């Protein structure tokens, strides 16, 4: 039985669920950034210089949003060859982004910003950027699954809902990153 289905003029329940999930993720990061603000006013607070590499990773994730969008368009036009390669590209860019974040953490760590000890922006940076990277990783894994599905010959899928869901999520983690990055630039 197909329990979930929807008429064309209505939002599909899975897409809708994603929007609520996005609301939920926003609350989590809102919690963390407000904790940052509260703590920033306590004595003994130290700031950090955000490493340059995070600017470049911002570029990477922005481009990946673009490729995701074109992939979605390709899927809707049924040009599957293009869809598959763009999907792959998006996932690769996602992984590159995560790698660059890790390099950024390393640089910061080598410049003496440690987790241990007195409170400061660095502790938040590791955790907030790290959690964001985890969310990107989740998206990349979902892309991988989509990619494998696109290759399996058994399932001929014309349903664009999963692709739309993942692309919305991908744009969301992109926007979330912009917010977090700007937040740290302004605050530290």
């Amino acid at each position, binding site marked *: 039985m197909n329990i979930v289905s929807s008429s064309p003029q209505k939002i599909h329940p899975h897409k809708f*669920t994603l929007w609520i999930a996005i609301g939920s993720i926003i609350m989590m990061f809102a919690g963390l950034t407000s904790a940052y603000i509260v703590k920033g006013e306590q004595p003994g607070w130290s700031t950090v210089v955000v490493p340059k590499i995070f600017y470049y990773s911002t570029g990477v994730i922005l481009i990946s949003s673009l490729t995701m969008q074109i992939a979605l368009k390709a899927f809707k036009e049924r040009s599957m060859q293009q869809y598959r390669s763009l999907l792959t590209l998006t996932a690769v860019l996602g992984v590159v982004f995560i790698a660059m974040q890790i390099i950024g953490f390393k640089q910061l760590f080598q410049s003496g910003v440690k987790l241990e000890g007195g409170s400061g922006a660095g*502790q938040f940076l590791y955790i907030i950027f790290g*959690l964001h990277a985890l969310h990107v990783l989740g998206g990349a894994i979902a892309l991988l699954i989509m990619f494998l599905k696109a290759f399996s010959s058994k399932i001929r899928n014309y349903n664009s809902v999963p692709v739309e869901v993942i692309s919305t999520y991908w744009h969301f983690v992109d926007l979330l990153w912009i917010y977090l990055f700007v937040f740290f630039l302004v605050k530290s």
Partner: protein
Amino acid sequence: MSNEALHGHPEVVTTHDVHHDEHHVHHHKETFITKYVFSQDHKMIAKQFLITGMIWAVIGGLMSVLFRLQLGYPDQTFPWLEDILGRWAKGGKISAENYYALVTMHGTVLVFFVLTGGLSGTFANFLIPLQIGARDMASPFMNMLSYWFFFGGSIVMISSLFIQTGPFSGGWTAYPPLSALGDASPGSKTGMDLWITAMAMFVVSSLLGGLNYISTVLNMRTKGMSMTRMPLTMWALFFTAVLGVLSFPVLLSGFILLLFDRHGGTSFYLSDIYIAATKTALPNEGGSAILFQHLFWFLGHPEVYIILLPAMGMASEIISINARKPIFGYMAMVGSMFAITILAFLVWAHHMFVTGLNPFLGSVFVLLTLLIAVPSAIKVFNWLTTIWKANIKFTPGMMFALGFVSLFISGGLTGIFLGNSTLDIHLHDTYFVIAHFHIVMGVSAFFGMFAGIYHWFPKMYGRFMNNTMAYIHFWVTLAGAYLIFWPMHYEGLAGMPRRYLDYTGWESFKQFAELNKFISTVAIIVFAVQLLFIFNFFYSIFKGRKLTKPNPWGATTLEWTTPIRPGHGNWPGEIPEVHRWAYDYSKDGRDFIPQTEPIGPNESHH
């Protein structure tokens, strides 16, 4: 895409043809595993939540019996306890460390695992698809995951009872530094790691469930079921899910920071600490324990309404059915639940009046807190008006629903005392607070849950529960609850603090020695009666009186239009269409008119 649905005007979402293309019910064969264990049928998942919740309730309740023994008889020993419990009761007495472990676990288990997981998990799962006319949840798979995360969290939490250093013992609110420093107490070691792990799994379970409940209610209603035709249970469970989805993630971020303080050496919550036990001064600087309190109570206060709203919704529904009258002020009920949902996010600091909160900020929180009394009073007024001059059928479900209203009034009134920051300086952390929240949240939500179980048991199992046992259960529990918690108000007013295992050292609290014995005795009796309920529940599953017709209570709502034992998919044929609201009782000379009946040509307007 319907943007309104995302921006807070759910009423305008029309859903008419979601189900047009699927009229058939499950055909493929089900194995024992897919039917009872990894089931994706919302009704089975609901039963899994219910029974797991009941097991938790017995464990949590038993813990309270143990520490009430200590509180009532602080100078006596009970050697038989050591025989049963071993190291938990060395020499027949609960040690200080075990006492704190017991209260902590009692709170955590009952607040989260019973009254959140067990209550919302059961009734949101069971009722949402049945009452809005859907075949299942938006994502049955996520729904199944929600249960299994709950189950996994339960196992981890239980396992913490058996480890060498014991479970976490710093209170259900898990304030640092007790929760952040392994060296602070035995329970702060592995017990706390297990506690955080279990709670994180619990949060994931709540989020998976909540997402599903919201999108199901907004997207999968049957033809004709506009938002304002939904029974109030649906509104209540919907707002509950909204609260959970927006506040649990904040708790999770609090826990993540806590984990880093525990294992990463960070200073989010820790500052300037010297541990006497190990004679070390910690390097942590600039941390703030108050920050944790903010993050905790930003969930913590909405959490109390996550517990209460489902009970409110079910009580509204059951009261209207058994008063054979439409619920009074349907839109006012919806509006007040909406107001409660909004205000729930704006009052958290009333738990922190004495933390050195800026007094001006405190007064803002006093105002917002006292504002909650308005929607609460509207709801009480509407319940009372619904039963006013009604020809009430005193079914067990109805008795518990009325008991719920009584308890909500009694407990809500003491909230107004506490909501005044000046009074709270005296009352904070005393037995007054214990009495307040046990009555208004603990017992009253339990009453809502019992009402729901007695009322919907016939739908769940096709049989009735035994009435005689139910009435005994009701009267003893109601009288017992008041006898236990009412006197605690006086103890609290006299300044008796909470979270001590022995008050005999205080001259001023010696006067309460007999009272404490009395409370403990009643607590044991009330606990025993809950076992009677459990017996009734399981006995009736197999031996209860069988339903002969599908709609035993004469209710208007859709769940009673399904077969007595509905399969996966709920309705064998098409999903019925809805033509009216859920509260046409005693209308135009008829006892009730089901929601599925079209409006007649000469029908009066409600």
